[in-house]
C-alpha cells in the first residue's frame, strides 16, 4: 500500500500551481477566478442587495447566500445542468465556511449573494470555489475580518498529501479526501472527510492544510494588492 511518487511529480506537501484574478465578471459587485492545477473556479458576488421574498429578511443583519454549480462540460461525463443534491450540500458548507469572517451587521434586511461556477474540474472544486469567493467578497467591499483560504488534504495509499488531484482521489488502493477551509487565524471553517484515517493521521493532514492555506492566503492577498495597485496607477 505504498504510494511512493505523485503522478504529477509534486512533493507530498506541495499544492498544484495556482493562479488568481480579480474582476473577471464586470457586471458583478465583486468577482474573482482561482485556478489550482486543472481546476478552475469563478465566483461572483452581488450585494448587499434587498432580499426577496421579504419574510426571509433579517432585521438584525444581512444574510449570506451561496450557490455552487459546475458547468455541464467541466467533468468527464456530462453533468446535467441545474441543481443536484451534491451541489446543494456543497453550497451549504461553503456558506458556513465564509460566514465566520463576514460582518453583515450594517446590512439589515439585505442579502449578499455568492455564485460559484466551476469551469474545469480536476478535484478540489469546492475549495477552489471558497478561495475564489473569498477574494470576490473582498473585491465587492463586503466588511471582512479575514480572508478564507481552502485546500483539500488527505491520505493517498499510505501517504498524507495536500491538494489531491482526480487521479489521487480515485487511487485504487484507497484515498481519503479532506476538504478544509481556514480563516487567516488558522481556525477551521470547513471540514469534511470521506474515507478512512486514524486520528494521528488526521492531525498531520490538518497541519498540512494549515501550511497550504497560509500559502493560498498569500496568493489571495498578493492578487488583491496587485489589483488595487493597478487601479491606483490608472
Amino acid at each position, binding site marked *: 500500500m505504498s504510494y511512493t511518487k505523485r503522478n504529477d511529480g509534486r512533493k507530498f506537501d506541495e499544492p498544484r500551481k495556482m493562479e488568481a484574478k480579480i474582476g*473577471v*465578471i*464586470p*457586471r*458583478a459587485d465583486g468577482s474573482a477566478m482561482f485556478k489550482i492545477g*486543472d481546476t*478552475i473556479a*469563478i*465566483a*461572483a458576488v*452581488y450585494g448587499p*442587495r434587498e432580499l426577496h421574498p421579504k419574510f426571509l429578511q433579517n432585521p438584525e443583519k444581512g444574510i449570506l447566500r451561496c*450557490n455552487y*454549480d459546475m*458547468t*455541464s*462540460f*467541466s*467533468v*468527464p*461525463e*456530462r453533468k446535467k*445542468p*441545474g*441543481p443536484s443534491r451534491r451541489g446543494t450540500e456543497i453550497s451549504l458548507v461553503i456558506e458556513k465556511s465564509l460566514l465566520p469572517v463576514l460582518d453583515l451587521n450594517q446590512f439589515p434586511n439585505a442579502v449578499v*449573494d455568492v*455564485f460559484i*461556477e466551476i*469551469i*474545469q*474540474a*480536476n478535484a478540489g472544486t469546492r475549495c477552489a470555489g471558497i478561495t475564489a469567493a473569498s477574494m470576490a467578497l473582498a473585491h465587492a467591499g463586503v466588511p471582512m475580518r479575514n480572508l478564507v483560504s481552502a485546500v483539500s488534504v488527505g491520505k493517498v495509499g499510505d501517504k498524507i498529501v495536500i491538494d489531491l488531484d482526480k487521479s489521487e482521489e480515485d487511487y485504487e488502493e484507497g484515498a481519503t479526501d479532506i476538504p478544509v477551509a481556514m480563516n487567516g487565524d488558522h481556525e477551521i471553517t470547513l471540514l469534511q472527510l470521506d474515507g478512512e484515517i486514524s486520528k494521528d493521521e488526521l492531525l498531520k493532514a490538518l497541519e498540512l492544510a494549515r501550511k497550504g492555506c497560509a500559502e493560498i492566503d498569500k496568493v489571495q492577498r498578493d492578487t488583491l494588492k496587485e489589483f488595487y495597485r493597478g487601479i491606483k496607477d490608472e
Partner: protein
Amino acid sequence: MNNDYIKSLVEKGKRIDGRNLDEFRKIIIETNISKNAAGSARCKIGQTEVIVGVKFDVGEPYPDSPDEGTIIVIAELIPVASPDFELGPPSPKATELARIVDRGIRESKCIDFKKLCIKEGEKIWMAFIDIYPLNDDGNLIDASVLASLKALSEAKFPKIVNDKVEHESKTNNGLKLNKLPVTTTLYKISGNILVDVNNKEEQVVDSRLSVSVADGNIHALQKGGDVALSIDDISKMIDIAMKKEKELAKFLK
C-alpha cells in the same frame, strides 16, 4: 445611465460608447477553455462573455431518421452573469436563446447529421452544446452563436471501448462545419437600427430581429421585443445581417 439620453443619442446616429450604429464591439474568440469538454470556446464581445462546451454521449436515433445523430442545445443563464438572472429552472429567455442557436445550426445543415450516426437504427451520437454566459453586457445571442459554432468545430469524439464511451480519451475525429451560420441580431431603438447593443442600450430596445446567415442565405429568424416591425424594417435589417456575415465568420476561421 438615463434611458432618454441613450435614445436621444441614437436619434442623432450616435451611441454612448462612441460606436457607429452598425458597429460591433471588439470580438475575441478563444478555444479549449475547459479540458474535459469534447470541444469548448469562449466568445467575448466587448464585456459580454459566453463560454460553450460540447459533450458527446451515445443515444438511439429517432425512428424517422435512423442514420442521423442529434444535437441538444441548452443555455444556462447562471446568476453569475447578471443581477437579473436567478437560480431556478430555465427561464423563457434561456430557452429562446438556446433554440435560436439550435435552429441556426440545424437549419443551415452546417454539420452532417449522418456523421453523428454510429450504427444505423441503433446508436447515434448526441452532441450536447451547453451555453453559459459569464457576463451579460448585452447581445448574448450573437456571442452564443459564435461560441457554439467554434466549440462545435473544435469538438472531438470520445473513444468507444467495448460498447462504452470513454469520456476521458478523445479521438482525433471531429465534425466538420461545411458552413458558418453566424447570427447578427438587429435592434430597433427610436426608429433606428443598431447591432450589438450593450446592456444599457438593451434596456431601451423596442424590438429585435436575429438573422442567421450562411453563404448569403437566411437559415433562421427570430423576432423579439414588444414593438412591431414593418416589412421595410425587416428588409433593412436583413441587409445589415448579410453584410455582417463575413465580418463575423472570419472570427471562426
